[in-house]
């Protein structure tokens, strides 16, 4: 318990350091642009692929589990849309990004720690925590909502293609279903969750990387801890946010 509280204290102290005034905003701006490409644009591929196939599977699963004449087939489209909007594109994609971005951030910062690059920044008078973490945080907070929007669209497209190709639903029914009883707030709900999850992924992973002590083996362990802890926190905050935002 003491160890947990001590780690929690270190985490918040790190955040305080991260959010202190940047030395030179123009350098931070450039770094943020770099992170937008590195963490954001480079994640479009995996989000697109996963979303497409998950959308396809959700449609097929819904179709095979609601194979009943009393259910109108457009409900397959509705089910796919709501599953993707409410859970998949925010939570599941966040878990996938925790693996990709989280391990990336923790290993990058951890390697900089063990190779004394962070010490070099400190010696120069640079706030290393802010310089290394803040641009990543801004980039993910800004870009992850776009990834969620891409995921929603690609997931619904995947469902349509799989559903019509497998013959479980007609194109007209699917399109009618995804428009039926649409609640725009679900998109807001999904994007709010995405922003929280982006903060968790970046801050928790950076925390584990920043405080690595040891060598390459420790960097690997920190990377694993970053993914595990981010994922657990995402699931925990998913429950809390769902209760707060949908109740």
């Amino acid at each position, binding site marked *: 318990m003491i160890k947990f509280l001590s780690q929690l204290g270190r985490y918040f102290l790190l955040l305080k350091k991260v959010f202190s005034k940047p030395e030179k905003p123009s350098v931070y701006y450039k770094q943020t642009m770099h992170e937008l490409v590195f963490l954001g644009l480079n994640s479009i591929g995996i989000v697109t692929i996963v979303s497409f196939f998950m959308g396809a599977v959700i449609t097929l699963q819904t179709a095979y589990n609601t194979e009943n004449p009393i259910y109108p087939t457009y409900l397959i489209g509705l089910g796919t849309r709501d599953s993707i909007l409410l859970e998949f594109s925010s939570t599941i994609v966040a878990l996938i990004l925790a693996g990709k971005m989280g391990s990336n951030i923790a290993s990058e910062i951890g*390697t900089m720690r063990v190779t004394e690059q962070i010490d070099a920044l400190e010696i*120069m008078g640079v*706030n290393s925590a802010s310089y290394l973490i803040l641009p990543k945080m801004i980039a993910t907070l800004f870009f992850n909502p776009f990834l969620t929007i891409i995921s929603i669209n690609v997931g619904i497209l995947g469902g349509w293609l799989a559903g019509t190709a497998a013959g479980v639903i007609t194109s007209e029914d699917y399109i009618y279903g995804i428009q039926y009883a649409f609640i725009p707030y679900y998109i807001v709900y999904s994007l709010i969750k995405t922003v929280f999850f982006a903060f968790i992924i970046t801050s928790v992973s950076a925390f584990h990387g920043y405080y690595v002590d040891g060598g390459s083996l420790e960097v690997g362990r920190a990377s694993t801890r970053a993914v595990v802890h981010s994922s657990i926190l995402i699931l925990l905050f998913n429950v809390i946010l769902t209760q707060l935002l949908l109740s």
Partner: protein
Amino acid sequence: MIRVKNINKSFDDKKVLDDVSVSFEPGKTNLIIGRSGSGKTVLLKAIVGLHNVDSGEIWYEDVLFNKLGFEEMKEIRKQMGMLFQGSALFDSLTVEQNVRFPLDMFTKKSLEEKTERVNFCLNRVNIIDANKLFPSELSGGMKKRVAIARAISLNPRYLFCDEPNSGLDPLTAILIDDLIKEITEEFSMTTIVNTHDMNSVMEIGEKIVFINEGVICWEGSKDEILKSDCAILNDFVFANALAKQLRESGK
């Protein structure tokens, strides 16, 4: 002048620095020597503020450095340059970007002015036509020289070098030593070098501090080191067979 007064540092139950007091002469190449694990890297990192000491004082001129807050400490740190054991060049930046980094961060110079300064620093350490290379494409000696160029890019008052010769062949090691000494004299810096290499001691040492098991055992010049009565120091200085033979033959 950098002065260290009665500093103590422990990691868990292990005492690494025990009541260390020493002053380093301005404008000279000061060497901290000692065996591996003797506490010299901890002492150097304590001096630059990378390790917090348990007690004691670290003075830069008339500023009590180790009691400063983060922001005030940053102002002193802008006057420091440091060469790390593994060079600590930023992997994602090219040679030119590495050397330009402190200039980007702390000056308002134009890109042309910064590039001019970068080229001056790189020429000074004899790195030619390597501006666009990444650290992974450089040899160990080149990495050290680029790290020196980065360390001097802001004209620091203080230069710190942690094991500058580690992992280098003897000839490259001498080149790096000479470079550190030349730069110290040329820019009137106070330089502190951490080493266990006796060649460095004889090549560049102006003031030498010997540390053993966290305690300063001896201080003096390179001429005095060969005539010292300190047994632990003599064991260290004359550790290799050639040095032993020379000593026994009275040379």
